């Protein structure tokens, strides 16, 4: 360390700005090192789009509204014989209405959310022997005939007995992977 300069300033005073710059430099270095992981983590957590007061959700160029989430007690096998799930497990059917602004509706994937925050897949392996197709949101797959530009989609789930479904999540992967429509009961 040299002594005072011509202005009489010691080492600390001569280097005060450099020392202060070290702090934000370290912060920037730390942020840069975790940015990729942070960004990936944030993108991995899609955000919900909630319904308006009338119960409809505007999302992905279509409008969606929950019709029901109810136990699916009338499931059939592909040979039309009754299909029952094992004791301790409940099968659920979620039906929602779709109003498209154009002729095409993006392919959707649907999940079920329970009161504890657990999330279940549409058409699980437990229903592989049941005649319960995966929801696509396409008008051709509507369980009821389309009318007035509206059609429906039905999705099937299983939960452990005691689970309380509270909402379905509809994602249009080709439109928006960062958000989903949350259709709550």
């Amino acid at each position, binding site marked *: 360390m040299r002594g005072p300069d011509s202005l009489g300033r010691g080492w600390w005073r001569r280097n005060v700005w450099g020392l202060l710059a070290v702090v934000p430099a370290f912060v920037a270095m730390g942020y840069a090192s975790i940015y990729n992981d942070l960004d990936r983590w944030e993108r991995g957590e899609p955000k919900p789009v909630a319904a308006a007061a009338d119960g409809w959700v505007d999302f992905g160029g279509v409008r969606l509204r929950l019709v029901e989430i109810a136990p699916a007690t009338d499931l059939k096998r592909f040979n039309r014989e009754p299909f029952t799930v094992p004791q301790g497990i409940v099968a659920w059917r979620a039906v929602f209405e779709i109003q498209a602004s154009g002729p095409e509706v993006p392919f959707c994937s649907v999940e079920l959310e329970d009161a504890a925050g657990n999330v279940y897949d549409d058409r699980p*392996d437990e229903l592989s022997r049941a005649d319960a197709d995966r929801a696509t949101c396409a008008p051709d797959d509507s369980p009821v005939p389309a009318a007035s530009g509206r059609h429906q989609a039905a999705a099937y789930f299983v*939960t452990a007995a005691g689970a309380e479904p509270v909402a379905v999540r509809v994602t249009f992967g080709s439109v928006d992977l960062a958000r989903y429509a949350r259709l709550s009961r």
Partner: protein
Amino acid sequence: MSRLRRLGAVLLVVAVLAAGHAIGASLPDRNGQLRPFPVTGDFGTDVTAREFTARAVAVRCAAELKIGEAILSTQGVWVVVRLRLTARREVTSIQYAAIRDAEGRVYEVTDRFEQPLVAGGRRLQPGIRVEGEIALEVPATATGTLTLLLAATFVDHRMDSMTEIPLPIGDAGAALRDPAATEVLAPRLVTS
């Protein structure tokens, strides 16, 4: 004095560089730093990883497996583990299963027949328990504690959890003295 100060500065820089190199060389490599988080639990108990809970219910060794009509022999010994698996909050699947021996050698689950329970094929729904058996081949000379490894990741296990369950196998090679082929239980729901 000025020359001494300059020499001192050079030596200081060299010392800092040498210290930095020594620290860098002594640290684990990138994959080592990001290695999976081990979650260790006892055989027969629930072991909870980030996405799933696993319990090794039973284990046995065999010289041959009976898969349908086919008999699968091995140059080593088959280790058949009965597992009970449950997803925690979201749907997941077990995509990696292996046995690690006392020497640190890792033997992955066999792909000689379909094993959907641990090959990603079986989607586990939260709270719904699925039980089934898996089979792995280890050398008959494998010694020491064999540890079952399970993960929800397929290839890249970094920065995720991996269960480690020691298997109570005394002598894996003893199974070779019993020629009876054993069947592997397919996945089924457990409701009790």
